[in-house]
């Protein structure tokens, strides 16, 4: 079994076996990240380029650390400091990076499909680190890893994804992967933040949080993008927090021992109460720690010779 793919753009085309291979590979790297010397020579001489057109601390740092712990050389590109401000197109930027012998390009972009466009245009492997509202596959994979690490099995697993589903690439990638693995996915949020026809992906839609939380084993909170507040998707932040914010009382509605996840950065007191974010049921920091191991696994699997 191996990952016979040039790029990782979306979780939609991945088979269950491929997803499991990635998670099992990440197990080996989790052991490496627990060592005193957290570095292995597997990607020596390879070059990984982080091409981030949107601000990101967590994901970029996570990829950078993952690549460095595999002994790859890492270059970080961000638009403010590059020729993008001079009007260069995405593909031209990428071709220039490729001409410098980059083996893997990690792309974060505000337009859906940017990673796909890039992948068609360059010979290097492309990993989608978030493209618009489309997908964020490595985030979903690290979420799956964290769920599995807690001893939960995906078959029949009751997962509630809460918040602004429509504008969330994290939600979209998780829906793809979780339904594929046999989980029962429930989406909860205000109607203005629920994409039309999302039921076609094999999920159930709720508008009442308390109802959706009943029996949930995993509560996956999405970040409320406060910058969208001006677009009339919800009246006030206070109302949103009252209807869709996860409080300690609401966690009690879910299955005992349910875990609380959040892709970060969290808005304390908006979508998640501080006492929930810091509680024992919260695995938010495990998600961050596992992100490095999972991305090491993905970089390793995608680093086969071209």
């Amino acid at each position, binding site marked *: *079994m*191996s*990952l*016979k793919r040039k790029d990782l753009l979306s979780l939609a085309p991945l088979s269950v076996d491929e997803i499991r*291979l990635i998670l*099992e*590979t990440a*197990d*080996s*790297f989790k*052991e*490496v990240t627990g*060592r*005193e*010397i957290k*570095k*292995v*020579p*597997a*990607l*020596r*001489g*390879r070059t990984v380029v982080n091409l981030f057109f949107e601000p990101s601390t967590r994901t970029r740092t996570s990829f950078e650390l993952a690549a460095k712990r595999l002994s790859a050389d890492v270059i970080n590109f961000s638009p403010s400091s590059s020729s993008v401000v001079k009007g260069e197109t995405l593909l031209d930027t990428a071709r220039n990076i490729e001409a410098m012998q980059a083996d893997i390009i990690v792309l974060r972009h505000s337009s859906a499909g940017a990673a796909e466009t890039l992948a068609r245009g360059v010979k290097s492997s492309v990993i989608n680190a978030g493209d618009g509202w489309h997908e964020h596959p490595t985030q979903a994979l690290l979420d799956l890893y964290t769920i599995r690490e807690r001893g939960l099995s995906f078959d029949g697993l009751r997962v509630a994804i809460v918040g602004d589903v429509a504008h969330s690439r994290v939600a979209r990638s998780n829906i793809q992967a979780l339904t594929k693995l046999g989980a029962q996915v429930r989406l909860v949020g205000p109607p203005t933040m629920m994409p039309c026809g999302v039921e076609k992906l094999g999920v159930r839609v709720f508008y009442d949080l308390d109802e959706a939380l009943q029996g949930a084993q995993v509560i996956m909170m999405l970040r409320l993008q406060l910058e969208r507040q001006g677009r009339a998707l919800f009246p006030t932040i206070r109302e949103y927090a009252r209807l869709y914010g996860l409080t300690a009382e609401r966690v009690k509605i879910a299955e005992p021992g349910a875990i609380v996840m959040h892709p970060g950065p969290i808005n304390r007191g908006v979508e998640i109460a501080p006492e929930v974010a810091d509680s024992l049921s919260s695995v938010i920091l495990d998600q961050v720690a596992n992100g490095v191991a999972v991305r090491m*696994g993905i970089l*390793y*699997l995608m*680093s*086969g*010779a071209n």
Partner: protein
Amino acid sequence: MDAGDIARALTRIAHEILERNKGVHGLALVGIRTGGVYLAHRLVRRIQDIEGVTVPSGELDITLYRDDLALRKEQPVLRRTSVPFDISEKIIVLVDDVLFTGRTIRAAMDGLIDLGRPAEIQLAVLVDRGHRQLPIRASYIGKNLPTSREEKVQVMLEEDGEDDRVVILKA
């Protein structure tokens, strides 16, 4: 080699390890996945029978240290490394089933040193088939098996659901 030959070779190696290191003090065994892990466990049991002490043992996956990763089209499946003790200042006996080019052992030594600084690394193998490509030699050898480079040596073990035996497959 049949099951009896393998059993006798392992018993002799266990005695040799104890003789050379004057007992079990500071001793630990690390098997190289997959065959070496099974053989390391068997050696631990034999040392337990002789000395009454269970020496620490671990499992090493050398995949990430291979020297051909950059050349392969598809990356090999990783398995877990588990060395649940501090190897620093210990005498580590690496255990593998077949010693051939020596490249696996080079990778294993690099992998081991990333986990700490052992006092000494020794090497125990069930079969030494020759054709070294690196200046490496075993400290303990079950059997020297002259082979041609094209032949394949396969060690089959009960732990894999086979009868214990070593066979040479002609090219």
